């Protein structure tokens, strides 16, 4: 990746490297277009077949990410709390989640969680719980959110802790409450620090949504596999699926980079 990004020394060099990165995005898009035009069979057919999967992948990523941003902050604040019980509970949550593969967590939520609820319903004699059925899309978003919120909380925590202690003290000495100080003094500064790792989390989450294909969600990856299975062609679907992921991740990386530059200039 670094080879396309030569010298960062002079502003001019940086400007060219930005253009080169966009060039890469356009090259990937152009490649998709060329493949579709030059060989409509199978590439155009694949593209039409998997396009709803692209939408599912993007929707899952966006919804999960918004929830991750909110829940991650809550977890981070709880872990920085003075109340040991609160801190303890969320520290255990983060440690457990980080120690279990995402795929296993998704399998748990989809396969194991519904029967647990149903069994609970049987013992509580509650028809609503006995008839509980898991919606794959909901379970996928739930699983990704719970997992990534644990990762994100560590990003937030590092960002908050990177702000000098004197900032909180100055805010508190002016009579602000803890949450006012967080809201107006600490977080606005921390956000600038954590923007690059938050952007990376977004891109990693986008790629990890491919795992939800194994829990009955018709995302891009699953649609690719379905096309392969019904048409008996193993190569072209994965070329097209890879290119589509690449477009999404490369554009995301550009957007993150752009926001980073913008907040830097404001300083």
């Amino acid at each position: 990746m670094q080879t396309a990004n030569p010298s960062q020394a002079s502003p001019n060099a940086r400007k060219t490297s930005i253009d080169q990165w966009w060039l890469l995005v356009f090259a990937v898009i152009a490649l998709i277009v060329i493949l579709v035009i030059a060989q409509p069979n199978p590439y155009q057919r694949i593209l039409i077949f998997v396009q709803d999967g692209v939408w599912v992948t993007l929707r899952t990523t966006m919804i999960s990410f918004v929830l991750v941003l909110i829940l991650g902050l809550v977890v981070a604040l709880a872990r920085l709390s003075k109340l040991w019980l609160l801190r303890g509970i969320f520290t255990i949550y983060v440690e457990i989640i980080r120690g279990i593969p995402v795929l296993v967590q998704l399998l748990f939520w989809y396969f194991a969680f519904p029967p647990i609820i149903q069994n609970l319903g049987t013992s509580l004699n509650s028809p609503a719980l006995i008839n509980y059925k898991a919606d794959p899309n909901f379970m996928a978003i739930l699983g990704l959110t719970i997992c990534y919120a644990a990762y994100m909380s560590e990003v937030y925590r590092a960002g908050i802790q990177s702000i000098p202690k004197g900032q909180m003290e100055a805010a508190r000495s002016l009579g602000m409450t803890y949450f006012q100080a967080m809201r107006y003094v600490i977080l606005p500064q921390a956000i600038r620090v954590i923007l690059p790792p938050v952007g990376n989390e977004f891109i990693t989450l986008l790629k990890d949504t491919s795992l939800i294909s194994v829990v009955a969600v018709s995302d891009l990856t699953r649609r690719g596999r379905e096309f392969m299975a019904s048409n008996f062609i193993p190569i072209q679907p994965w070329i097209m699926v890879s290119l589509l992921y690449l477009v999404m991740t490369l554009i995301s990386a550009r957007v993150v980079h752009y926001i980073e530059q913008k907040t830097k200039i404001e300083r």
Partner: protein
Amino acid sequence: MTSEPIIHIENVHKRFGNVHALRGVNLDVYKGEVIVIIGPSGSGKSTLLRCINRLEEFDEGRIVVDGIPLDTAANINAVRTEVGMVFQQFNLFPHLTVLENILLAQRIVRKRSKEEATRIALDLLHKVGIPDKAHNYPIQLSGGQQQRVAIARALAMNPKIMLFDEPTSALDPEMIQEVLDVMLALAREGMTMVVVSHEMGFARAAAHRAILMDDGQIVEEAPPDVLFSNPKQERTKAFLSKVLH
């Protein structure tokens, strides 16, 4: 001076793990008084100052500020709005302009309108001598200017008491006087001030009492002229011989 102290400190103890930072400190500060606290580093003077607005919790004893005991969270916040604090490292908010630094707490704590808060802020910037820096960011100011903004920010809350924690220790020598001048003017207006500082000139000019702390205790207190030129305690003499020249 009235008979009721505005700050009442009674037998306060503070431990950091094994370190016994404050060992039973008693001190009364009266309205309009200026107190200067000196002492070697690690003597507990900053810790004592930070206990007054409860930035530091204490383990034993009692502190009452303007009739409010420092016990519940609500009381602590009430005290903090009455007590302004100026830090060694200024602690301005770097993501806000000078004006925004002075507006923030006025708006969200004092709930003042934007117009009123801005008027107060600009008046104070005028008072501390940097009216032209309102729209600059802290990083664009010199240390002395930053510290004067920090004083203005604290004053904007209309505190009854101002605490200064080594306000000139992080400054280049040529910038110390401009900060001390602002503090002197404040003292002459009758502000109650507790100042941790080794600026003897300021102490002589402004302080009613000087206090020497060592090893978590108040060793000696006297008017600054008496304490500096004619100390009674050996520890005071030993400390002053290192500081004065």
